[in-house]
């Protein structure tokens, strides 16, 4: 009965609703955008009312929030963290730097296009994006989840070789364990 297609659909709907309503965020806050997270979470904007809540470790997190620029050095860690997360998982790129490099577009050490390395589900534009836009970004993600379109993880799995090739271009000394699902 459970493996039945129609019941699977219902299960999916319920699951997606739950996932949508409960977003545990692992904020990778090395960029300057991290300063926007506290106001988003605390009294003024209170993201928790949407079910958004911080997670302490990648094992528990649903969303990897990348706040700002990523150097090649941090990219390695971000990939590692992403791969340690458990399905279903989503990535939010936060700020211009993750989109096109932003003000670091000519830095020798900063990647410019995040979605070449990790499957980004939602980008939040701005430098810095204000908490309102952050919340709207989460709203967009919830929309995608409930529609079942936020399948970045699946994409990553399917195109792992392509992603790996891109990652290894930046990180010559690749010592990470294999990503096996």
């Amino acid at each position, binding site marked *: 009965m459970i493996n039945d297609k129609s019941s699977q659909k219902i299960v999916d709907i319920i699951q997606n609703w739950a996932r949508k309503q409960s977003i545990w965020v692992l904020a*990778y806050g090395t960029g300057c955008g991290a300063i926007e997270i506290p106001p988003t979470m605390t009294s003024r904007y209170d993201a928790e009312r949407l079910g958004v809540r911080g997670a302490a*470790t*990648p*094992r528990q997190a649903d969303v990897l929030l990348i706040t700002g620029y990523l150097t090649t050095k941090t990219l*390695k*860690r*971000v990939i*590692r*963290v992403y791969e*340690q997360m458990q*399905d279903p998982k989503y990535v939010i790129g936060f700020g211009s730097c993750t989109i096109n490099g932003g003000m670091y577009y000519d830095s020798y050490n900063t990647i410019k296009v995040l979605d070449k390395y990790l499957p980004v589900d939602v980008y939040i534009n701005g430098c810095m994006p204000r908490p309102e836009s952050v919340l709207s970004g989460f709203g967009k993600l919830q929309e995608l989840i409930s529609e079942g379109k936020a399948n970045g993880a699946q994409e990553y799995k399917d195109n792992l070789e392509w992603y790996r090739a891109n990652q290894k271009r930046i990180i010559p000394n690749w*010592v*990470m*364990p294999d990503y*096996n*699902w």
Partner: protein
Amino acid sequence: MDMIYLIFLIFLSGAVISWLAGKVNHVLQDILFLASVIVPSVLFYMNVSVGQEVHFKAGGIDLSWGITDFGWIFSLIVLGLGVLAAIYSVGFMKGKERRGYFYFNYVLSIMSMLGILFSKDFVSFFIFWEIMTWSSYLMVIYNGKHTQSIGIKYFIFSAIGAYAMLMAIVISHSVTGNFMIADLITAYPVLSFNLQLLIPILLLVGFGVKAALMPLHVWAPGAYSNSPMAYTSVFSGALSKMGVYGLSIVMLSMISHLPEGFWFREVLAWMGAITAAIGTLWAVKQDDAKKLLAYSSVAQLGYIVTGIAIGTELSILAGLFLAVMHAIFKSTLFMAVGAIERQTGTTNFTEVTGLIRKMPWTFLASLMSIIALAGIPPLGGFVGKWMLYESLITSDHYMLIILVFFSSTAAFLYCYKFLFGFFLGQEEKEWAHVKEAPVLMVIPMLVLAGLSFVLGTFPGLILKPIDAGMQALGFAPTNQHLWDTSILFNSWGNQVALQPILYAILGIFVVFTIFLTIKGYKNTRYVTTKDISSSGEVPKEHENLTFSINFFQPFMRAVEPVMRRQIDKYYNGFANGLEALFDFTRKIYTGNGQTYAIYVILFLIIMLLIKNNVFG
């Protein structure tokens, strides 16, 4: 020849033969060693019945050997553990030097312990006691380390205890005219009050040393950790129980004649509880597994003493049951440490980690024993703890129970430390080569662990002989029936049924294990311990991520005021003071002839001056 003589003869000759056989062949030596432990044990259980006695004379003193119901319980510990630990020892000693020495002392220890149980008179009791002491002393210094500190300390404390006992023995001789234990017990109620106090106190000092009672416990950690682990399991498991054996006899058949509410019991019970607390705190502090277990033994013996000292039926049952349980689980743990020491070469928590996948059986045995040690249901330790608490509550020892509870809660800390330190944590590459211990070492551990499991649900198996033994000591049973095969009662009529608990725990556990396993079975995967969420870092092979140094630092900080006062320091100060004093007396002998002559003249003059006061 009587079977009793034969048993001791086999032990004695077995000890010597298994020593000497090492010159011929090691396998033969192992077999002979096992035989010299197992054969007498089998003979004992087949042919010796309770009440059987032999009499003979030595040095003009009547001696008599025979087993009582009470001794029979302890014979279970001694011989059961002796046999299992002997099997373990064969595995443990493989490829080590001085096996003959080890085997010799081992067999002698077992023999002397059995002899203590057999002794119906004080002289043979004392002789066996001393054989036990020096054979265990020789084991303590087996590896030749710390002989002058730990070894001597052990022997001195043993000697203090033994001599206190000897004093009690000779005093009892002056009272009864012979050395029979039974005669002293008979004569005890009519003695003068001073003797009524003095004899038990002296005896208790003697037994308290072996039972590692609080001010006399300082030898224990060193001695336990310094002797080879195969022996320590017997040392802590059975040998320390001899102290409990004597203690029980004193408490049950002598102190019970003292007036009701006398401070003696209270003081002893408090000493036991303080021993437990202090032993536990020190155990938490240790970084070496042997030391940890040694202090833990001290603490556990404290519970036992408390139980026996309280003196109600339930508390004595609790104390003796805990004694049996302690023999089971603590020896398993020492065996596990021995296995780890053998396989890895160290017993330090800060060095060894992550052995769970390399030594799964050892882990299983340790886990069971630790659960039993912590007193968590459904294993045997819980039964003992339950009875102890209930007896403390029902006999209005309200402050005592707090102290006991504190120490048994703090015991969780070291329990966890033990398991975590060795088996859990990062699986370091350094220990990747480690294999499971030889099967000869694993089997005894598992058997003992299984025993603690069985006794956790069916304590009646062992409570029955304990009850018989208590009655043999003259403990009048109350009309209330306080135990059944798997149900325990306290004197207020509350009860705990163990079987439903076991089934409930198992049921819930199984249900959720199945749930955890089946749910997403395909998408659940095993990852190595290097694959942890450490801020995105990939730990390198050589990077040690184990947390094992200063493990309970916050706790130690909290209890630091207590820990600052080490009783060891006082003893050392005392000993140093004595040595200094002796150095002064040594100076009496100046080495100068004139001085000596002056001594002679002075002596003569003084004697002549006071001659009428001294003589006549």
